[in-house]
Each structure stands twice: as C-alpha cells, then as structure tokens.
C-alpha cells in the first residue's frame, strides 16, 4: 500500500506523518515525556517525605498509625480494578467494539469517583480528629512501638500530616482530572470518534490513569503502613 492510498483510508492520519504507526508512536512518546515530568513532580514530594520520615521517624509512625488502613487498602483495590477496566477499554477500542469501550470507560469513571468518595470520608475523619495541619491541629496520641507508648512531638507529626495532605491531595486532584478526561472520552466514544485505526486518545489517557494508579501504589505503603505491627 502506498502512502497516498493509506491516507485516503485513514482520515485521522495527519499529513506530516509518514503513516499511522509513526503518528501513534509520536503521540505515545509525547505522553511518556509528560508522564516523566509527573514522576519528577511527585518525586519531589516523595523525596521530601523520605527526608522528614528519616529525621522524625517516631512522629511519622504515630501519625501513620492514626490513618485508616482499611480505607487505604480498599482504595488501592478500587484503583487496581479501575486500571484493569482501562486496559480492557483500550483493547475494546482496538477491536472496534464501541459499546464495550463506552461501558469500560463509564465503569472506570465510576471506580474513580468511588475512590474519591472513600478519600472524602477519610479526610472528614481527619478534620474530626483535628489532624489537619493548621491552627486547630492537635495530636495527643503516642507512637505504639510494640506496646511501648512513646510520646512524640506534635509539631513533627503535623509535618507528617502536611505531607499526607499534600501527596494524597495532589493525587486526588489527578484522579478528578482523570475522571473528567474519561467522561469526555466516553461521550466521544459513544459518538463513534474512535476506530481500530485511530484510538490514540484512549491509549494515552489510559497511560495517565495507570501512572496515577502507580503513584497510589507507592503512597499506600509509605503513608498507611509505617510500624503497624504492635
């Protein structure tokens, strides 16, 4: 097949690309470059977390022990299932199954919203316990180190909760953007914008969703699972 013939068959192919495969690879590379900037963005916060955790371990452990491990674990599971529905949506798009594609996209958005609702309940608990950094912050709990109750400096635990809200809040913002993105894709997919020859937006939005999932995969053990054995 010559290039002209190919173009005639694929209206989504832009004229400055040699063929659809090159266009797809360029879009994928651009998406990955964006994801690398996201890794560095969250990486800065992970680095700050690491430095302060090593400096104030007892305070961080005491703060971590106050988090709801079940809500965190359930949210991890919700995100993993949503990653599976995303990858199945991409597969359905590649096979040209429009209704299946829309179905998986809608389920993904619903799972994303489920995550945010659970997160909201967790945040409410933090407000009720005055664990939100600021003038009303108070922390009276001790670090339970295998039954030994070690008092901690509330100022240092406030650091833990500052990082907790910065990291989970920024992650939640990414989830909100992801839900908006996938809602838009679901509408466009319903209208038949995507064909087996062109579904790059579905693929690239999927990459974004998986990255947000990976960030949570690290946030869960780092924030929720410090010194739980006691």
């Amino acid at each position, binding site marked *: 097949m010559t290039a002209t013939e190919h173009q005639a068959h694929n209206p989504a192919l832009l004229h400055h690309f040699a063929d659809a495969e090159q266009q797809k690879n360029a879009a994928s590379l651009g998406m990955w470059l964006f994801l690398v900037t996201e890794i*560095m963005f969250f990486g800065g916060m992970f680095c700050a977390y690491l430095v302060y955790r090593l400096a104030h371990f007892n305070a961080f452990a005491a703060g971590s022990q106050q988090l709801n491990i079940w809500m965190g674990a359930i949210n991890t*599971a919700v995100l*993993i299932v949503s990653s599976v529905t995303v990858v199945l949506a991409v597969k359905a798009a*590649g096979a040209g199954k429009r209704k299946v594609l829309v179905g998986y996209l809608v389920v993904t958005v619903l799972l994303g919203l489920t995550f945010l609702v659970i997160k909201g309940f967790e945040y409410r608990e933090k407000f009720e316990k005055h664990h939100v950094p600021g003038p009303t912050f108070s922390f009276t709990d001790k670090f339970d180190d295998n039954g030994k109750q070690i008092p901690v400096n509330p100022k240092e635990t406030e650091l833990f909760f500052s990082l907790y809200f910065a990291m989970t809040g920024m992650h939640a913002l990414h989830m909100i953007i992801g839900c908006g993105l996938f809602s838009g894709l679901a509408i466009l997919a319903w209208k038949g914008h995507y064909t087996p020859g062109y579904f790059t937006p579905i693929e690239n939005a999927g990459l974004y969703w998986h990255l947000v999932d990976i960030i949570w995969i690290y946030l869960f053990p780092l924030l929720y699972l410090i010194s739980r054995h006691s």
Partner: protein
Amino acid sequence: MSEHEEHKSYSQGFYIAIGVTLLVLTITTAAVAFVNLGPFNPVVALLIATIKATLVVLFFMHVKGASEKLTGAVVVSGFFFLAILISLSLADYLTRSWR
C-alpha cells in the same frame, strides 16, 4: 497468552490475571505490615510496591513489546533521574552528623 491483531495487546484473561496478581500483592503488603520484621518492614513494603508498579508499567502500559525503543529509554530515564534526586538528597541529609 495470545498476541493477535496488535503486537501491543494481550488477551482479556491475561489482563484480568495481572489485575488479580496486583490485588493479591495488595493484600500481602497490608498483611505483612502487621508482622514485625524489624527494619525489613519498609523494605518488604517497597519491594512489593515496586513489583506492582513494574507489572503495571510492563503489561498495562505496554512498555514490554513497545515498537519504539525510544519509549523504553524515556521510561528508564524518568526513573533514573528520580533515583538521582533521591540518592543525592539523602547523601546530603543523612551525612549532616555535625549538626
């Protein structure tokens, strides 16, 4: 696992199997956190998280089998620069013993 129309796509069953593996690893990491392994608790937790992230990157994000070698290079460089950020920062903060 069947590789068909697209060289970057696996079968539905394979994706679900990866998803189940990820869920099992999540339960494992939560359960292991309640066992006292001393200094190895965070090591095990991060090891399991890294296994999960690797599964997602390779099979859900299709880095394994990507037609462009460049994509793989970009992904590796991202984590490489993250490693520089963290290792050099810690090399500083962990060696301030004079303070």
